[in-house]
C-alpha cells in the first residue's frame, strides 16, 4: 500500500462529489497505453475488479485511486495530482458523459 500518493484539485473533487451523488461509490484506475492512455479512469466501484497487482495510492474525495503495480514502478512512483478539464475523453470514464475529463498531472 502506498497511500497518500494521490491528491485532487478542488475542481476535480467537486466533480467526484457530483458523480458520486449520481452513480454511487466510485473508484479510480490510472490508465495507460493507446489513445487517452495517461487518463485516470473513474467508474462505479462495482464496474471494476481491483486485482492483487493493483496498488492503492490513496483516496480522492470518497474514491479509492489505484494503479497497476508494474506501471507504477515504471513511471517511477510519481505523486499523482488529479485535475479535471473541459471536453470528453474517449474512455469509459464517467465524467465523459458531462463533457469533462479527469487529467493526471505531475
Amino acid at each position, binding site marked *: 500500500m502506498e497511500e497518500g500518493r494521490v491528491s485532487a484539485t478542488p475542481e476535480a473533487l467537486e466533480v467526484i462529489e457530483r458523480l458520486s451523488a449520481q452513480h454511487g461509490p466510485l473508484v479510480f484506475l490510472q*490508465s495507460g497505453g*493507446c489513445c487517452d492512455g495517461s487518463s485516470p479512469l473513474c467508474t462505479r466501484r462495482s464496474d471494476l475488479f481491483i486485482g492483487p497487482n493493483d496498488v492503492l495510492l490513496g483516496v480522492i474525495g470518497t474514491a479509492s485511486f489505484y494503479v497497476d503495480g508494474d506501471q507504477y514502478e*515504471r513511471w*517511477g512512483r510519481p505523486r499523482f495530482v488529479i485535475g479535471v478539464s473541459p471536453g470528453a475523453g474517449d474512455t*469509459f470514464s464517467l465524467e465523459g458523459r458531462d463533457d469533462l475529463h479527469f487529467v493526471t498531472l505531475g
Partner: protein
Amino acid sequence: MTVLDKEFTYAPPGLAGSPVPLKERYDNFIGGRWVAPTKGEYSVDVTPATGKSITEVPRSTAADVELALDAAHAAKTAWAETSTTARSRVLNAIADVIDANREMLAVAESWENGKPVRETLAADIPLAADHFRYFASVIRGEEGSISEIDKDTIAYQFHEPLGVVAQIIPFNFPILMASWKIAPALAAGNVTVVKPASPTPWSILKLMELIEPIVPAGVINVVTGPGAEVGMALASSKRIAKVAFTGETGTGRMIMQYAAQNLIPSTTELGGKSPNIFFDDVMAADDDFLDKAVEGLVLYAFNKGEVCTCPSRALIQESIYDRFMDRALERIAQIRQGHPLDINTQIGAQVSTAQLEKITNYVKIGRDEGAELLIGGERNILPGELAGGYYFQPTVFKGNNKMRIFQEEIFGPVLAVTTFKDEAEALEIANDTMYGLGAGLWTRDTSRAFRMGRAIKAGRVWTNCYHLYPAGAAFGGYKASGVGRENHKMMLDHYTQTKCLLVSYSPKALGLF
C-alpha cells in the same frame, strides 16, 4: 514523403468546391436507416484544424444501443446463411465504393481527425478499401476440416459465425480502424454494432452513407456517443457474442472484464511504446538506405504521433549518435505543419484539446525529469483561422529508458531518444517496457536483423521499414499491448466458433450397456 511541387488545399466539408457534402446534423445508422437518438440529444463534432464545429452527431444512450442490437439480431441469421460468394461480393462492393469516393472520404477524415490529407489520400482510404478486398478474398478460400477418427467415425469441423459482435473504434484512423474490424467480422458471417471514437464519429457516418445501398439492413450498425454511456452499454451487453476494442489499458481492462462476466471472447489492442533501433552500420554508406533510415526515425511524427505503434523511443548506437541525429533533426526541422487539407502538409493537428493537454503535460514531465529537449516542445499557434487548432511542434527529447517519457505512450509527436553500446544493450532497452506492440530495426546486417527481430518481445517488428500496414501481415500486441491479431486471415478465427459434427457410420452399439 517529399513535398509536392504544386500547391492545393481542399475546401473544408460543406464549403463550395469541397468534395464533401455536409449536413447540419447526422443520425445513428441502425437497421439500414438513419435513426435519431431516442432522447433527441446531439453533440457538436469539432475539427481540430480550427477548433470549430463541423456538424452534429447523436449523443446516444443505452436505449439507442438496444435499437442497434435489435437490428443486428434481426439481420444475423440471414447474413450468416448468405453464401461466402455473396458476402465476398458485398465486401468487394464496399471496397469499390471507398475507392470511387477516395477524395471525399480522405477530406472528411482529415478534417475530423486533423491528420494531413496526403496521408488519408495515400494510406488511410486506399488501405481501408484493400482490407475489404483482402477479407473478401480470403473468406472464399476458407475451409473447414475433416478428421477420420477411425474407419467409421468422422469429425467434421465447421467455422460458424459468432452472431452479433461489438466493435469499438479509436480516433486515430477513424475509417481505417473501422475497416480493420468490420471487414473480417462481416466476411466471417457476423453482423456488427460499431461505436466510433467520441472525437471522430462523423467520418464513419460518411462511409455509412456510401455503403447504405450495398450492405443488407442491420449488418452494420453505427451508434455514436460517449464511451461511458454507449461504449459501456454495448461492451457489457448480454446480447453480444464478442467485443473488439482498441484504446487505453484501463478501458481495455473493463472490456475484458465485461467479456469475462458474459463469458464471451474479446480482442483488445491497447497501445505501445515502440522502440526504433538504429545500428551503426546504417551509416556505413551515404546512400538511399541511410536516407530511408533517417526517414524511419522521423516517422514518429506520422499521424502526429497518434498511432498505437508510434516509434516513440529511438535507440541509436552510440558510435553514430551525433552524425545520425544531426541528419534526423535537420529532417524534423523541415516538417511542414499546417492546414490538414493542404496537400503539402506533413503534420496536422492533434485530435482534441484533451490530447493537446496531455502532450503538453508530458513535455513538462520530460523537462522536470531532466531529459534534454532537442527540438520543439511547444504548442504551435498557426496564423489565421488555424489559430484555434490543436497543433503541437514535432518534439524530440534525449534521455534514458527509465524516464517516464520513455515508458508511457504520449500519443503525440514526441520522440524520446537514447543510445546503446551493443546489440545486447539494444535488446535490453527495447524490451524494458510494459508494452509490446511494434518495434523497428535498421541494419544492413541481415543475420543481426533476424536475431534481434526474433528476440524483441513485440507483435510486429518492422525490419528496415516502419509504419507499413498491409493486409495480410498480422498485427497485434505482446505483453500489455493487448490480446488478438488484426489484418490477417487468422482474424477469421477471432470471429468464428468451431462446430464439430462427430458422426458414426457404424451400425454397431458401443457394447457398454
